[in-house]
């Protein structure tokens, strides 16, 4: 299928120039990896007058540790997250998540930030950002905003970005305490499939008190943080009863639908199974054991 919509293309060299172009062109779209945008252009679900390629903005290509958080620039691809020494050492679960995204050929091009900008319900980058209390950083000509991840995702394919704003990156607070995490994605097969359901769990020990951060993906219009489950679990050591308690709360947190990929009932049940496995794996990893990050747990 070819692209029928005619548009202009510009590749600015600086952030200031990009923001100027963005504010002047109401019907412009930003191009980073393009794996979503080019697909949408072909399917005619978008029809911009102007495409702004931001791949010339080298300052957005960085993964950095700044102020106790990992900062992921808007041009960082999933392959770069997988290969980053900083990420592998300080937040290996990000490697686990990135390896679940489509295929190498997509991961070489697709960006973490592009994923949260497309904001489809099945995105892999959402649950971690929401559960860890991450931020999305946006910039316009006049101001800079730091938006909490839970406020970023408004609805399926709808984010808090306003006209004239460019997403320059996202930050995820680095846990200072001993921790373990886990991301499990349910697909019909490995490689290239979208999630039917996904769960992210982060378990840390603050003064020996367990703290749980949990979110689900693909089972609500936006990544859903499981506040209710976290509240029931926090401060309590993980054991068989607690896992059962957590499983019983799943249906009160997620609102899956039936679609071409799975039924609502199947998704609900699998969320319970995956939550159990993720909690147990996170605990084992916290204790320095358990499956290596990236191993398939489903």
């Amino acid at each position: 299928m070819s692209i029928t919509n005619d548009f202009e293309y510009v590749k600015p060299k600086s952030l200031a120039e990009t923001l100027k172009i963005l504010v002047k062109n109401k019907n412009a779209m930003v191009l980073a990896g393009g794996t979503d945008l080019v697909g949408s252009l072909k399917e005619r679900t978008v029809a911009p007058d102007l495409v702004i390629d931001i791949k010339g903005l080298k300052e957005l290509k960085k993964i950095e540790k700044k102020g106790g958080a990992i900062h992921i620039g808007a041009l960082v691809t999933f392959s770069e997250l997988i290969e980053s020494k900083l990420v592998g050492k300080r937040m290996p679960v990000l490697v686990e998540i990135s390896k679940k995204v489509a295929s190498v050929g997509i991961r070489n091009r697709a960006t973490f930030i592009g994923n949260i900008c497309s904001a489809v319900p099945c995105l892999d980058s959402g649950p971690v950002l929401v559960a860890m209390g991450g931020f999305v950083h946006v910039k316009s000509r006049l101001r800079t905003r730091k938006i909490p991840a839970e406020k970023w995702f408004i609805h399926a394919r709808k984010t808090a970005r306003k006209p004239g704003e460019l997403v320059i990156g996202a930050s995820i607070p680095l846990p200072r305490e001993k921790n373990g995490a886990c991301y499990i994605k349910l697909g019909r097969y490995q490689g290239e499939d979208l999630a039917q359901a996904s769960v992210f769990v982060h378990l840390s020990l603050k003064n020996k008190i367990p703290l749980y951060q949990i979110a689900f993906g693909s089972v609500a219009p936006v990544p859903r943080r499981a506040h209710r489950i976290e509240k029931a679990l926090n401060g309590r050591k993980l054991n068989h009863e607690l896992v059962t308690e957590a499983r019983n709360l799943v249906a009160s947190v997620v609102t899956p639908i039936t679609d071409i990929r799975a039924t609502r009932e199947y998704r609900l049940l699998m969320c319970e199974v995956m939550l159990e496995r993720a909690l147990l794996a996170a605990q084992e990893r916290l204790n320095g054991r358990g499956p290596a990050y990236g191993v398939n747990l489903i």
Partner: protein
Amino acid sequence: MEKSISFLLNGEKRTVEVSPSEGLLGMLRDKIGVKSPKCGCDRGDCGTCSVMIDGRVVRSCLVLAIEVDGAALTTLEGLLENGDLNPLQKAFLNKNAFQCGFCAPGMIMSATELLKRNSQPTRDEIKEGLAGNLCRCTGYTPIIDAVLDLVSEQKKDRKQ
């Protein structure tokens, strides 16, 4: 509006006029006549259009032609060594790793990147590296065997 872009294609400099809405796959096949990248699903799911941009495999159906201005592209044609098939291509032949051949260029591009980053991949690592390159003929086993075969051959060579 058409724009002139320049890039390296298999080491050779090319300059082409493209419109912003033109895709990379179409430009390579129809404008330049490089036929190894195929149009399968045309939405990034099947891997038959795989080419390398600056040493990284990408889905050329999801890249605009205009994006490769200044880049170095490699297609299957660029993998030949002195006009002969390279060891990976020979391994594919030896193992009968394709029947209709439609997926083979993409498979070989993906396997090339995998071996560049990991010269001793396990069967599981090969599966992960080739996931997203679909084959409807072989059932994948001979493809994975071909890569494994090459890996063990090269290991033997190094020992000698």
